């Protein structure tokens, strides 16, 4: 049996701290915890695990098209004093696809900056409080409201939208 005591402790303390704002939490395997929180409690959750479990490192921010919603995962890593290994907590918050927005966590972890901008480019999620959401990876002249990694955004659709903005039928 693989030891997952530290992982369970993170799950339990998230339950105690966030109460009803914690929608789901599970220890997936050794050193991996997944949790879903409400958008309103996202900052509180990030601040909490950062201070309590030394999770100062955000590895990346992943956007996932979950049908009517965009799921945004913050992969946070760290360890407490004396621990030999680090635990990765994938903290998820869902936001409606029609008007996707989440609070920025960059004032807590500045390293999340490029990742939030990438999710903004690819999924159209607005990170409230982030000073400059100008395109990071999408090219100049990219058509508005075309978010390449959303499921409904097919290659043909992207081609036709780019054709419209450039006035030709490529």
């Amino acid at each position, binding site marked *: 049996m693989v030891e997952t005591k530290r992982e369970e402790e993170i799950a339990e303390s998230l339950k105690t701290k966030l109460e009803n704002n914690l929608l789901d939490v599970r220890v997936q395997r050794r050193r991996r915890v997944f949790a879903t929180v409400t958008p309103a409690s996202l900052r509180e959750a990030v601040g909490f695990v950062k201070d309590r479990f030394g999770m100062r*490192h955000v590895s990346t921010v*992943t956007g996932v*098209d979950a049908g009517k919603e965009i799921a945004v995962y913050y992969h946070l890593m760290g360890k407490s004093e004396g621990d030999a290994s680090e635990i990765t907590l994938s903290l998820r918050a869902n936001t409606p696809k029609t008007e996707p927005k989440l609070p920025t966590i960059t004032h807590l972890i500045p*390293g*999340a900056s490029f990742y939030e901008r990438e999710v903004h480019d690819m999924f159209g999620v607005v990170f409230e409080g982030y000073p400059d959401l100008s395109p990071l990876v999408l090219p100049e002249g990219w058509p508005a409201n075309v978010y390449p990694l959303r499921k409904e955004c097919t290659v043909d659709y992207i081609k036709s939208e780019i054709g419209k903005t450039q006035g030709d039928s490529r």
Partner: protein
Amino acid sequence: MSETTFTVPVGPQHPALKEPENLMISVDGERVVDVKIRLGYVHRGGEKAFEARNYTQGLYLVERICGICAMAHQLCYANNIEALLGVTVPRRADYIRTIIAELERIHSHLLWVGVAGHEIGWDTLFMYTWRDREVVLDLMELATGNRVTHATNAIGGVRRDLTPEMISQISKGMRHLEERVKYYASMIPKERTIMKRAVGVGILKPQDAVALCAVGPTLRASGIKRDVRRDDPYSAYDEIPFEVVTHDGCDVAARVMVRVGELFESIKIANYALEHLPSGPVRVRVPINVPAGENVSLVEAPRGEDIHYCKSNGTDKPERYKVRAPTLANWASVATMLKGGYVADIPIALAAIDPCMSCTDRMTFTDVSSNKMWHWTIEDLRRHSAKWHGK
């Protein structure tokens, strides 16, 4: 922007290496005041492509993310899918993966030391290290069949076993490279050509490195002991003794020394794995369809932490596959390193994170005094650098 700054665009062609990205650099005379980064010039839509391919095809797509750290990406991918399948890889395969991953780190770090030499105008070093790199590339070819894009992994193990002849050849190569690395380790700190250009250049303070979530040798050269191989061990790293090399210099010189130190450690790891190689099979067969679930996989690539996220849906294709290569994690730190430094030090400071644009993705200069803008390629910048430092 005050009246005395000036914006100089550097790139998208050749900002430091032969790969595109754009940095808008605001300068006050020779001093860099601000840096704005623009990526995406080599964005190939890889993540979307994964969704249209089955897991086996993905295995070959993933190593094409990067020509240098093909093994790191593929290993990260294989670990990811194996975790979703609940498959345990044979121990011999874990050891072979570790050996190939460390050979790749040796090749990548030797390549980088050469590029660093080139950036400061000392091409002799470039030719030395690239000659030595040939040794490890030949070993890669021997072990995997290819110098680059090795296709070492299969989902469930490795594609090819190591024969006793291969093991003795790799050991022989490691002995040769260890002598070469000893030479670099004793020569570089005493060599003024390098030290004059590297000490105190591109400073990244430990607290900034942590806050900006830097990874790999860039982070460890700011004195922070973090390495996925130790902090979240995969393959055979939980059984192999090695040191996480750090340096307190926080500058380009420290990044050179960390990589040289890591070359020794990689040779040590490879030797240990070769000597302790368990017997047995190297691969288990796995089903085509992957049960619904999600997993996060981490690997210490030569440039630092590589993270992949996979969401499976029970079919033979992933619902979502996310890749964050180490270079993207270090871009935020680059802006901090360049600020306050000299224009002439941009190439080496930029090269010091060992950026890989294909994995991630120009420089523009603005003079704050006249608001004039111009573009420089790295060749222009390198020429300016050599001239300026030659004064």
